[in-house]
């Protein structure tokens, strides 16, 4: 396996060297090309070269990560949202989220759920700041017939439309099933933001690149849990390796009737839900 990867890397480097040589001959205009070719070489190194990105000795061929959400357990405390924002450097405002929580409320006499998230202005007003997360008690005086919370995050789809549309291949799916974005390669066109049917991607204006949830890849490759899973006080979020039959996620999928969001897209999401309602999208 490793041999194969190394030989493909050698071939790629040889090709890039050739490209670089041609560029030198071509002169000033193509000099830019060579530097980008070098960048491309640098880009391919960590993932295919050491087989350890981003953690030494991590082998991405040995894992198949998946995520579970038990909506019946979620209490809407939003620790996951806050933890994620701090762990991953997500702006502390109401417009950029790797993960968020939606609240579905059916009032008496109404057939359609009223849906809001912590990013709703009413909830922000209640918390006092965009960086403080809570759900306002806006249905205090109403007769609620049914209500529940649904945590949302990137679905790390098996057929990710965001990866399909990226014009430079800056976003890609790893062997262990996580969709990553190479921030040193993304051109910031935001086609992927448009292509994601779940609204999971957001644009980092400061860096000029797109970002999203990647199941805390920097943590899971070290054997840790994603932050949102770790901070959840009720175990509504489940994470693990599907290659391990006794992992929490394997048991979660095996022991429950699980659902995915927007299955009609053919994206084959890898976040499995339990206890969601027909109104959830």
């Amino acid at each position: 396996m490793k041999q194969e990867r190394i030989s493909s890397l050698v071939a790629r480097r040889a090709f890039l060297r050739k490209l670089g040589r041609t560029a030198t001959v071509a002169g000033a205009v193509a000099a830019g090309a060579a530097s980008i070719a070098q960048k491309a070489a640098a880009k391919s190194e960590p993932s295919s070269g050491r087989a350890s990105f981003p953690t030494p000795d991590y082998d991405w061929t040995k894992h198949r990560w998946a995520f579970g959400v038990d909506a019946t357990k979620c209490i809407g405390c939003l620790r996951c949202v806050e933890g994620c924002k701090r762990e991953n450097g997500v702006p502390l405002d109401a417009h950029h989220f790797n993960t968020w929580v939606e609240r579905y409320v059916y009032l008496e006499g109404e057939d359609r759920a009223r849906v809001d998230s912590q990013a709703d202005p009413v909830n922000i007003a209640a918390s006092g700041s965009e960086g403080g997360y809570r759900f306002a008690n806006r249905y205090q005086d109403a007769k609620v017939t049914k209500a529940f919370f649904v945590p949302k995050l990137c679905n790390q789809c098996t057929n990710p439309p965001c990866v399909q549309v990226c014009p430079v291949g800056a976003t890609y799916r790893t062997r262990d099933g996580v969709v990553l974005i190479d921030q040193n390669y993304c051109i910031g066109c935001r086609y992927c933001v448009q292509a994601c049917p779940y609204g999971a991607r957001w644009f980092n204006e400061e860096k000029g690149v797109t970002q999203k949830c990647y199941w805390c890849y920097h943590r899971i490759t070290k054997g840790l849990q994603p932050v949102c899973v770790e901070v959840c006080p009720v175990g509504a979020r489940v994470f693990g390796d599907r290659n391990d039959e006794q992992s929490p996620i394997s048991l979660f999928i095996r022991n429950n009737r699980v659902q995915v969001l927007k299955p009609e897209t053919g994206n084959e999401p890898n976040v499995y839900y339990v206890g969601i309602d027909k109104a959830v999208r």
Partner: protein
Amino acid sequence: MEPLGHYAPFTGWVYPNETVIEWSVAIVVYPYITGLVAGAFTVSSLYQVFGFKRLKPVAHLALLTSLCFMVFVPLPLLLHLGRPERAMNALLTPHWTSAMAMFGYIATFYMALLMVETWFSFRPFIVAQARRRSGLPGTFYRVLTLGSYDLSEEALRCDRKWIFWLAIVGIPGAHGLHGYVGFIFGSLKSREWWSSDLMPVVFLFSAIISGVALLIVLYVVSCKLRKVPIDLACLKGLAYTVWAFIMVALVLEGLEFANIVYKAREGVETILEYVTGPLLIPYFVLQFAVGAILPLLLLSYMIWRGTTGKALIAGVMLSAFLVLLSVFMMRWNVVIGGQEISKTGRGLLEYQMHVFGREGLLIAALLVAAPVVMLWGVTRLFPPWEEKAA
């Protein structure tokens, strides 16, 4: 609470990340300019390939228009990119499954084709200037001859052959360029408003009418500026072309909307709420009624009554302006409209346009005006007018 200034206000339920509308007016201008390129090229091809002799007075102007607008096509995209310095990555390490990755190749190919075709078309003029002029302009034209001063009958026949074939290759080139722009939107399954098989053809036909309308305006204005009489046969030819294509464009746009409503998939209530609310004026009034149906009726009336003279010029000019507006609104309604309907299918957002800034109204207006200014300069160097160019 921090100010919500440049974020999109919303009603209903939207995903939190959607409150930043990512594709701005710059991305509205981009397909608009691209469409004008394709449409103008269609006019030049109608003459060069299909032998519409009455369009001869605008054939060269059409080519130059196409070229000048094409120069500015990549600009809105570059202004929009978060990391414009990496733009070349799409050409050097393209990701083949991305429709957007094709842009660099199609645009480069088409740009080269336009330049070569323009060179062949203006070669006799360039040679004449190179021989006659001295000093800097003379050197400019002498460099442009590329060392070929041969204006023999045989050489000119060879030139015509090249022009003919380049025009033929240019048709799929120009229309491929624009069809692909439609595909960028139509191929996304994330938004009901975009996800349509008809999108590429809708873009194509609206492109054609916008390009022809632009040429009508440019031709009439240039005649007025040069104080020469307007060739009414040519103007009528252009009017017929708009008239014919506007019907196809209207039918396609109508069909697309009818499909959304009739299929009535999830989220259709929100779409209907949107088109009968915030989009009523931009969509039904400006894009359809004022921009397409009105010029169609006006042109039909003039063709039926055999209107001629000043009335014809005024009527055709008015129709052309309306068509240009309609097509701009169509781009707006697709690009901005699509993003104002939430991916949840249960909420609506409101795009807040900046006036200043990289992706503001001012830059967008400049981007549309710049090719016209460039065209003015280019027509000074390469007069496309019949009597001089001949």
